[in-house]
Structure formats: structure tokens, C-alpha cells
């Protein structure tokens, strides 16, 4: 039996780039959990894409042994798209290390993560990192922590994860300050799923925190959220690999393998209990993750439809938040409407489909889910602009809104306010967290935020702004459908739903952008924007008039063929709509037209 008083379950939370992964590496090193040989930089970020983007997408866990204590470090995803997963990972902990960059101070995700930690009643260990940097401002940051989180400055640990300074203090603080888990091994089983991942050989590996009871191989268990039943094959804990164990008991963090085929059957946040002696209530906080952002994926070559379907099936095995269903577009043929947690999630999936599955895709511009109140009294949800009913059937349209929190330097407040206004934001509050830094909060439609709001914010503030957001529900707004006609035909995949006051400019900007990205072809191509059947903007891609290799003699032919092949390949990467070849980027330009 595990001595529960010797267990500490904790996470590290931080704004992106504040040094979370580096500190995690140092802790692994310091506790000799892994030897230096095994030590790759930032070992907990294993997926290639994660490395490239410098973020942890999926939460992971690792078990550290130090001075007779078991320290379970549960990693959390670093992006707001995965907020729910962060909250469930935190629910598996009793404490969290809150890292703040000594040169940056508190940022939006620091605040969001700290709030999540507080909501889960976690003990927070404040750590000010990167103290080795010459522009570190320890006093200012300490003051911010005091002002924003009421943190006593004496509690702060100062570290340089890069140089290893202060790592021992952090580990000791985890043991001394974070309480051991509560829970009773004799109670019915309640295991919180905080992550899961699909393994091609073993099926789904479920990452759990045992809240009460005990789980062993051979037990029949049920998921309380979905009522699905499975037989446990193996349980264990994490080092770099999975280490099988006879049982997991209350307070422990580990994994379960139970012949589960898809991660959607092991929802993050769900509670596992035994079939024979089930818990009466599930753990709080479970919700089915709903996609917030949708777009269409279409294979450029029709033959790839089947491969796309198979690829989506495989990705869904490991990604319960990915949603897809078949969709047909008049312009693009057969494809899928896919749902995502956010724009980053969308981009990651698209990149994986193209990179890992070798697919050549058109992604239509992302959109949110609109709620349409129809004149016949019925309400419908639509996740694709082409499903919008005709204007006469529409009583009103509602769209999802976010509460957005922005941190920036006071110098940029004017610019940020202008930007949020342009994005139809409603001002809520403004607060100085220190003499130079401001926290602003707004209500902004999700559809505006998914486009390029974050980039816009960064550019206005010369990088000195961060944001975080949470869903606050639907609001009625004035929206209209904007159609694009290419060569006199509506291209449904280019339609979008836009605010009425912006429709004209959006249409104008979009046709201009399309004129630039659609290459010249054998004939003039008119490009029009129409609102409610009325054309509001028009551009023309003039016909190509000259494309001829002037020289071609004996030895040239091989080289010339290569040029012609390249030209031909270029066209293959475009989608033929009617008689017009349209490049991939055209479909995404809908969101970047401004």
C-alpha cells in the first residue's frame, strides 16, 4: 500500500515562453528521474509539432522519486484552445508551480492559469524565473504578484531554470507547501481522467488520478459520463515509459490500459469507477468538449477523399475534441466539415493531415457556430455559412461571445482599444496592475477573435500584449451572408457570415485579395462579392497573354520538360472550380482579407 502522505501531485503553469518546459527538465534532472543520457531538451514535449511550435499540446505526467516522496508532475497544455484540458489536469493536483518570467511579468495566460488553479483550490508556489537575464525586474514582478494574486513576497522562489538556480528550493517547496492528496482507498473507485492517448499497439492509454478507491488489472470498470464498460488489462505509473504496477490507489497518478479503441471513449474529465461497487457520484467538472471553430477540409484531388476520411478517423482516435462529418460543396466536391477547439487546434490538424498523411487539402475559412432563430419559431445551429437559411426565414442570428482579457503596457492602451472596437468588442474593465502595465477586459465575438485578433494585438503592442479568453455564451448580432462569385458562379466554399456593418468592406477586401492570389488563366475571370444577391464589389483577373519558352534546341528538351512539369504540378495543387483553377490559399484568404 502506498503511503498517501508521501505523495505530492502538482503541475507547472505559466504563460507561453516563461520557462515551463525548462524548469520541468531541471526538476527531472535534479531528482535524477532520468539520467543525462536520456535527457533530450524539454523531454516532455515529444511530438514533433509541439517542438516546432514550442508548446505542449497534450498533457502528460511523470513520476519523480525524491527523499522518499513520490512527486507526480502533471504537464498541462500551454494554449488557451486547450483550456478545458488544463483545468482537468489541475483537478488531478493539489498544488501548482506558477512561473512568471522575471523580464515579462504577469501575462494573460498567467492570470487564466492561476484562476484555474485557484478554482481547483490548489496551493500555488510562485516562482519568478529567468533571474539570470540582465533585464530581470524582480521587485516589479513581486509587486505584480502581490497586487494581482495577493501573494506574499516571502513565498516567492527565484530561479533560473536555464542555469539550474533555485531548482532545489522549488522541489522542497513542492514537498513542504503542497498538501498530500486526500482520499480513501476503501471507498468505491473514483478515478479522474485528465488525459488519454492512443497507442497503435496497446489501444488507448488513459491517464488518471485516483481520487478514492483502488484499481487493479482484471477489474471491470465503467466511464460514468458515457456508461461504457471496459476490463482493465494493466495499470501503472510513468517514468519515461509506462511502468506496470499491481494497483493504483487513492492519491496516486498513473495510467490504465483497458482495451479502449478510441480516446473519445475515455473523455478527459470523466470519472472511472468499478462495475461491481460503483461510486454514487461522478467527480465534478466533467463536460463533453464542444468544438468552437469549424472549417471544411476538401482533398484537392477527388481520389484522396477516402484517404482523408481514414486520416481523420486515425486522428480522432487520439483527439476526442476533433469533430468531423461528411460535407458536400458545389464548388469543391466531397469533403468534411471539421470542428476544433480553436484556430491553433485547426492548424495543427491541418498540418498533420498534410505532413503525416501526405494529403493535399483545401481548408475553407474557419467559422463559428451560429444560432439562427427562424421565423417559424424554431432555433437551429449552423456550423457552415452555406447552411444559413434564406433571409426571409431568419428572425435573428446569434453568435458566440468571449470574455477576453488583455495584458499590455499602458503605452499601447489606445491601440488596443481601437483594435477591440474594430473587432466589435464591448469594453468591460481596465485595471493598472503596476504603474506601466494594464489589464483590459472586453466582450468580443468569437468570430472576430479566431481570425487574426491575436496577431493584430501583438503587432499593435510590438509584442507587449497577451490575451486569454473564455466563452460567455451567445448574443444576438446583425449578420449577413457574403457570397463570392468566380466566373459568374457562386463558390459556396468562399461564402462567409459577416457583420452587416462590415459586409461591404469585407466583400471589397476579399475580391481584391482573390484577384491577387488567383493566377492568370486563359480567359478573363470576373470575381464578385454579393450580399443578399446584390453584387457589391468586382475585380477581374485578366487573361494570361504570354507564356512561351523562347528557346528550345537539342540538349534543352530535358530541362524544358522539367519546367513544363513544374508548371503542371503547380496547377495540380489548385482546385478546379468550373473552368477556373483556384489555389489553396484563396480559400483561406477569406479570413485574412483585411
Amino acid at each position: 500500500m502506498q503511503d498517501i502522505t508521501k505523495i505530492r501531485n502538482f503541475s507547472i503553469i505559466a504563460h507561453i515562453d516563461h520557462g515551463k518546459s525548462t524548469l520541468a527538465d531541471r526538476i527531472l534532472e535534479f531528482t535524477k528521474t532520468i539520467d543525462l543520457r536520456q535527457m533530450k531538451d524539454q523531454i516532455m514535449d515529444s511530438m514533433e509539432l509541439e517542438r516546432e511550435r514550442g508548446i505542449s499540446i497534450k498533457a502528460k505526467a511523470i513520476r519523480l522519486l525524491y527523499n522518499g516522496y513520490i512527486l507526480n508532475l502533471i504537464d498541462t497544455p500551454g494554449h488557451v484552445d486547450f483550456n478545458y484540458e488544463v483545468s482537468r489536469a489541475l483537478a488531478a493536483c493539489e498544488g501548482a508551480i506558477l512561473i512568471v518570467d522575471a523580464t515579462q511579468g504577469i501575462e494573460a495566460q498567467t492570470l487564466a492559469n492561476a484562476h484555474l488553479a485557484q478554482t481547483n483550490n490548489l496551493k500555488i508556489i510562485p516562482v519568478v524565473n529567468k533571474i539570470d537575464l540582465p533585464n530581470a525586474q524582480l521587485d516589479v514582478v513581486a509587486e505584480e504578484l502581490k497586487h494581482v494574486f495577493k501573494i506574499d513576497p516571502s513565498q516567492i522562489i527565484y530561479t533560473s531554470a536555464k542555469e539550474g538556480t533555485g531548482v532545489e528550493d522549488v522541489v522542497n517547496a513542492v514537498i513542504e507547501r503542497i498538501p498530500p492528496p486526500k482520499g480513501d482507498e476503501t471507498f468505491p473507485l473514483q478515478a479522474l481522467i485528465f488525459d488519454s492517448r492512443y497507442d497503435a499497439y496497446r489501444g488507448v492509454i488513459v491517464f488518471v488520478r485516483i481520487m478514492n478507491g483502488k484499481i487493479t488489472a482484471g477489474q471491470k470498470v465503467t466511464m460514468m459520463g458515457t456508461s461504457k464498460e471496459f476490463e482493465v488489462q494493466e495499470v501503472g505509473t510513468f517514468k519515461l515509459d509506462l511502468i506496470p504496477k499491481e494497483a493504483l490507489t487513492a492519491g496516486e497518478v498513473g495510467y490504465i490500459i483497458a482495451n479502449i479503441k478510441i480516446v473519445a471513449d475515455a473523455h478527459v474529465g470523466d470519472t472511472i469507477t468499478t462495475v461491481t461497487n460503483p461510486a454514487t457520484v461522478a467527480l465534478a467538472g466533467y463536460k463533453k468538449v464542444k468544438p468552437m471553430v469549424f472549417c471544411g477540409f476538401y482533398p484537392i484531388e477527388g481520389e484522396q477523399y477516402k484517404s482523408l476520411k481514414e486520416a481523420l478517423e486515425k486522428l480522432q482516435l487520439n483527439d476526442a475534441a476533433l469533430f468531423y462529418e461528411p460535407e458536400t460543396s458545389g464548388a469543391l466536391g466531397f469533403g468534411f466539415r471539421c470542428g476544433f477547439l480553436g484556430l491553433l487546434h485547426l492548424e495543427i490538424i491541418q498540418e498533420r493531415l498534410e505532413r503525416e498523411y501526405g494529403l493535399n487539402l483545401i481548408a475553407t475559412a474557419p467559422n463559428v457556430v451560429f444560432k439562427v432563430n427562424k421565423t417559424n419559431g424554431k432555433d437551429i445551429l449552423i456550423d457552415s455559412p452555406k447552411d444559413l437559411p434564406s433571409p426571409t426565414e431568419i428572425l435573428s442570428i446569434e453568435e458566440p461571445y468571449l470574455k477576453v482579457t488583455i495584458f499590455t503596457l499602458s503605452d499601447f492602451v489606445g491601440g488596443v482599444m481601437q483594435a477591440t472596437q474594430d473587432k466589435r468588442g464591448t469594453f468591460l474593465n481596465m485595471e493598472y496592475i503596476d504603474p506601466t502595465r494594464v489589464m483590459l477586459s472586453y466582450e468580443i465575438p468569437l468570430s472576430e477573435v479566431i481570425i487574426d485578433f491575436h496577431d493584430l494585438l501583438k503587432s499593435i503592442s510590438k509584442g507587449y500584449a497577451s490575451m486569454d479568453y473564455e466563452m460567455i455564451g451567445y448574443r444576438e448580432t446583425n449578420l449577413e451572408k457574403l457570397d463570392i462569385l468566380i466566373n459568374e458562379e457562386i463558390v459556396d466554399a468562399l461564402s462567409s457570415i459577416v457583420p452587416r456593418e462590415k459586409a461591404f468592406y469585407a466583400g471589397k477586401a476579399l475580391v481584391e485579395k482573390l484577384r491577387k492570389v488567383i493566377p492568370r488563366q486563359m480567359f478573363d475571370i470576373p470575381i464578385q462579392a454579393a450580399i443578399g444577391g446584390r453584387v457589391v464589389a468586382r475585380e477581374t483577373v485578366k487573361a494570361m497573354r504570354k507564356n512561351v519558352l523562347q528557346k528550345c534546341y537539342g540538349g534543352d528538351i530535358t530541362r524544358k520538360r522539367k519546367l513544363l512539369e513544374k508548371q503542371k504540378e503547380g496547377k495540380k495543387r489548385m482546385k478546379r472550380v468550373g473552368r477556373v483553377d483556384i489555389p489553396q490559399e484563396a480559400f483561406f484568404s477569406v479570413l485574412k482579407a483585411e
Partner: protein
Amino acid sequence: MKIFFNQPFSLYIHIPFCKKKCNYCDFYSFAGRENEIDEYVEKLAKDIKRLPDPALGGIGSIKTIYFGGGTPTLLSASNFNYLLSTFNFQLSSLQIEITTECNPGTVDLEKLKALRKLGINRLSIGAQSFNDEHLKALGRIHTAEDIYNTFKWARKAGFKNIGLDLMFALPNQTVEDWKETLRKAVKLSPEHISTYNLKIEENTPFWEMTKPKTQNPNESTNLLIPNEETELEMYEFAIEYLTTNGYKHYEISNFSKPGKECQHNLTYWRNEEYIGIGDGAKSFDPTHLESNKFILGLRLIEGVDLSKDEIKKYENEINEICELGLAELKNSNLKLTRKGIYLANEVFERFV
């Protein structure tokens, strides 16, 4: 050499030496290695001796010989003599077309006389432009004056078949500049004129000059290349002007007085067999025979004659280009329309 020729073939001999590399040139050639010429000629002579038997068999086996470069006229008359005497038959008795490319600034009257005497009966003069500023910008080593002299000497030496190579869409060239060059060329009354649209190739000084500075057209060192519309206007003018002045437009870039088409180059466009010798030279490659027939044959203004099977096999492609107004099929002859000439790559692409 693995190819066994059962029909008369053409012979291309590559001379990769140059006094100076031009700013637009990405051919296999190099400057400042003239001291290697004799050695190189020795190697070529060995290659000639190794040509398949029919090549050495006399009349009817070899159709044309073409010295290209580089700058073939960097070879001395005795180098030429050495090479041509390697053939075990009297070239002068063959009556075949023997061309050398000839760069103004590398020949004088005496040398041209000697070349003529050796049996070389056609000159392709790399004039490029009659505008000294443009010549300088191209990195040519000669002036317009040198072109006039070369031409005059060539006639005097007895060359009755002379071609001039010209280039358009040059940096800072106006349509009027181009017209002027064409007028001057026509005034000399050469038998053959080629007009080439300058293309900026990778790994050339021009590429480097255009690449980073296109962002800022106001930079004084920037190369101002005429746009597509201007290029087209220049090309259209060349076709109109030359055809109204007694030249037949017989290939996308080539014009000649009647009967003075370059026989050597026709071999290429008719997809017939040829052997290339010398460094970087390529021989006839039968790999894409059928597809090359279109890509090469359609370069000829008279078009290409197709078999029933070929028409059937490429039915879709042929229909498509005809519907787009790029080509015409009459009986078994497929040829480009004027629009198709301007957009030839769009046609060729379909046959790759």
C-alpha cells in the same frame, strides 16, 4: 554511344569556352580557360572518331553539323581544320549545312575566310542588340560596330547563309529600342533572324541583380525588366515586322528567308536523331518520343502531322487546346494559332 542510327542524323559540337560570361547566360560555358582549348579539341577529335560508323560513311549519313557554345569562334582556324579533317570524308563534297556560332569581337576577315574555306557554310552571329548600352548591360564583349564589321567580313569571306540572334525584353529596353534593333538587323538582310525573349535564369548575374531589389523599383542599380504586356508587344512587333519584310516565321523564335531555315535546328523540332559531342552536350533521347513530338513539333509554325492513333490517344488534350483557341487541327495537321504561340507553354504542358 548506344544509339544506332538508321537514318541520317545531325551532329552538334559544343565549345564551352568564352572570353567572358554574359550576365544572362546559364549555359555550360566558362571564361578564362582558353589555354585548355587545344587539349579540348584533341578530346573532341577522339569523340568524332568514335562516332558510329554511319557517321563516317559519307554522303547521306550525316545531315548537318553545328558548332555551338560558349563561343566556338574562340577556336583558331587550325583548331577547326583539325576537327573537320578528322571526318574520313570530304565535308565540302557533302553539300550539307555546317554552321558555327560566331560572336562579334572574336573574328576578323582572315579567320572568316579560313572557316569558309574549311567548308563551314553558315554563320549564326550572336548580335543580340544594336544598342551599345544594352549590349553592355547584357555583359557582351562587343559593340554594334563590331556586329557591322563581322557581318561585312562574313559576306566578303563568302558566307551566303548568315543568321543573326537578337534578344528582346532587355533591362531598360523600350519597345522603340527593340524596333530600332530589328530595323537595323533587317537592313543587313541576313538569311535568318532569331528573336529571343530574355529570361532571367537562376545562377546568373542577372538573377542576383533582380532578386533582392525587386522590392524597391526606385533603386538605381535595379534591373528594370519590361513587363509581360511589353514583352508581348515586342514579340508581336517582331512577327509583324519580319514577316512583312520577307522573312518567314517558321518556329516560335525563328524567321528566315524562304528555304533558309536552319536545317540543323529543324532536326530538333522534327524530333529526329542527333548526336551531341563535347562537354555538356546531349544526344537524342528517345525516352519521351511521343510527347516530345508535340512539345517540339508544335514549335514549328507549320505544326506537326499526326497519325490517327496519336490523335486518338491525345484526343482530350487536342480538343481542349482547340476549344481554348490555342491550336487548330486540320485533317492530320495540328498547329498553334497566334494566341497559342504566345501561350505555347500552356499547350505543351498538356503533353508532358
